[in-house]
């Protein structure tokens, strides 16, 4: 099990808090990125005196919205560390209502980044396509603008119940797999072992036929569809001619 997502997040958190990055911490990836529990300070393995679990708790105590802003800014991969540092400082001193001061440039930049990330999470909540594999795993491939894997995984936990599922972010070569209630991460070439297989899939063919008929020809509006579902998302959508949604 790799720790890269948590490590990256902790480094980002340390920078945003002005603490300097932790030094190669040996951490487990469970925690803020895959569940509500903050990691215990004892698990951090960081020798710069930075306690990510404590930082997360502090941010949450100031305001859950502030913590959300920090996590989503990290997911956005847009940098914005200076803006985040300023917003954290101001929120610490002026209270969480500062997060609603949209006349402040930093608040606006971070709110926009968060909105972009939320939109991307929402998009893939609808557009991730899972294919069953022979081993019973349902796997989906995504290529997202932002690093949303850790936010996306929990969205499917109730959909699949006890059925194992995985999401592979091909752009970042990151993957997460959920089995028996536990989520684990893979990265690099290891993600390839979670890819859907190839082959016939009757349900996928039926879906294509359904999709082909459900639009009302009297109101056809390809431009509107393109605006609502931009072409860059079509790659893994079999109904849009995406060829890369393999079957079992």
């Amino acid at each position, binding site marked *: 099990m790799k720790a890269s997502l948590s490590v990256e997040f902790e480094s980002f958190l340390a920078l945003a808090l002005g603490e300097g990055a932790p030094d190669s911490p040996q951490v487990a990836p469970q925690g803020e990125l895959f569940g509500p529990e903050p990691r215990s300070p004892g698990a951090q393995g960081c020798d710069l005196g930075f306690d990510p679990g404590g930082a997360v708790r502090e941010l949450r105590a100031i305001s859950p919205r502030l913590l959300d802003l920090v996590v989503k800014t990290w997911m956005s991969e847009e940098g914005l560390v200076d803006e985040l540092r300023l917003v954290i400082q101001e929120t610490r001193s002026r209270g969480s209502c500062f997060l609603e001061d*949209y006349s402040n440039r930093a608040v606006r930049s971070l709110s926009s980044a968060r909105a972009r990330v939320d939109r991307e999470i929402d998009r893939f*909540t609808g557009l991730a396509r*899972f294919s069953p594999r022979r081993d019973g795993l349902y796997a989906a491939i995504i290529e997202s603008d932002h690093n949303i894997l850790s936010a996306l995984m929990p969205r499917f936990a109730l959909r699949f*119940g006890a059925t194992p599922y995985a999401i592979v972010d091909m752009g970042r070569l990151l993957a997460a797999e959920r089995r028996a209630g536990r989520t684990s991460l893979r990265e690099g070439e290891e993600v390839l072992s979670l890819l859907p297989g190839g082959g016939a899939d009757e*349900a996928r063919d039926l879906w294509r036929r359904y999709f082909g008929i459900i*639009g009302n020809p009297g109101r056809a509006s*390809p431009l509107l569809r393109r605006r609502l579902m931009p072409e860059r998302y079509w790659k893994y959508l079999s109904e849009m001619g995406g060829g890369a949604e393999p079957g079992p």
Partner: protein
Amino acid sequence: MPLQRKPYACIVLGMELGEKLEILAASARCDASFASSGSDRRPRSGGIGAGAPSGVCHSFSGDGRCISLLKVLYSNACRNDCAYCANRASSDIVRTSFSVDELVRLTLDFYRRNYIEGLFLSSGIFSDPDIVMERLIEVARVLRVEAGFGGYIHLKAIPGAGERLLRLAGLYADRLSINIELPTAASLVRLAPEKSGAEILGAMRAMGDAESEHTRDSRRIRHTPNFAPAGQSTQLIVGASPESDRTIILLASSLYRRYALRRVYYSAFMPVAPDPRLPAAAAPPLLREHRLYQCDWLLRFYGFKAEELVQEADGNFPTDVDPKVAWALAHRDFFPLDVNSAHLGELLRVPGIGLRGARRIVATRRQVSLGPAELGKLGIVMKKARWFLSAGGRPLCAPPEEQSLRLLLAEGPREVPGASKPGPGRTVESQMEFAFP
């Protein structure tokens, strides 16, 4: 005069599943309802699926509508002869039916692949209404009880089905709906002679009563089962009959009030077969449909009343400006509003200020005093709002006389969206803010 009927019940046997799916999906597509929001149902232990309270769009069809549910008819055989419907008894079309097992399998297979949030199931009236309703309920029961399915189920109430069955349907469904279709009893008699307005409203009342009872019971009894947690909806066809926008929107408003409906859908009429009872074939009135959705949004979220929204003498919304701008132009004395003191309800009446913008104004002005520079940063559409706002006792822009202002606020040529225009991926109802500011 109604066309001569052909037999409606010649169901083709032995049809393969894909063919049935195409026929029964095409038969269902004139129903505008698409939402999968409003339910946070959890799966039973060992089951799969859950409600997504704000709904999810899984794709967009060629007409730009959100695809959220597997929307099909159980059967397209129908003994009624509604003039506007492709499935009417006199239509010369192939008739077929799903089996319960086929529908259950399709729903689960599509759901696991993340193609859909659940099932929308309606049916032609191929037999006694109770029998048709029982088939729909059986599909929902097998999904819920035998497959442990926690995803979304929208069931149509069949006009004429008994109240006991409607109450049973609500125990399995997240949403129930019955389409009123035509806005007056006279049009119903002319275009859908077998339907009865009293029967449709009676079903709405029965479902509303059952919902209220369940809400009351659940306050006292912890394990009261859910009853249609996403409420009920209906649909009105626009342009098949001569009623004005005012008639339609007054009816919608009264349905919201009297039966606590969650949604009224408006569907631009599209002729399916020539019929002397219908207007001559023309392009579907999409702009009219769009204006009705905008107005509906103002009723439900902006605090407007139906009576104040249609000003035009002919009872229809103007085509050049949206209903909120039309109201503002007709109420110049209400403006300008001071952006630093107007309350939320007042701000929501300003063209260019949407729900989110109004909330942002109220939150931000607690920190700083607002002027034009700050407003532009809050996502307010200043080119509309500036004519209606003041700050520090001075109007942001001195408004010109009404006709010039109307020209300034008129909408340019645009693609008129269909009934559904949620942003990609996410949800449906919460993103209808598209229409305003």
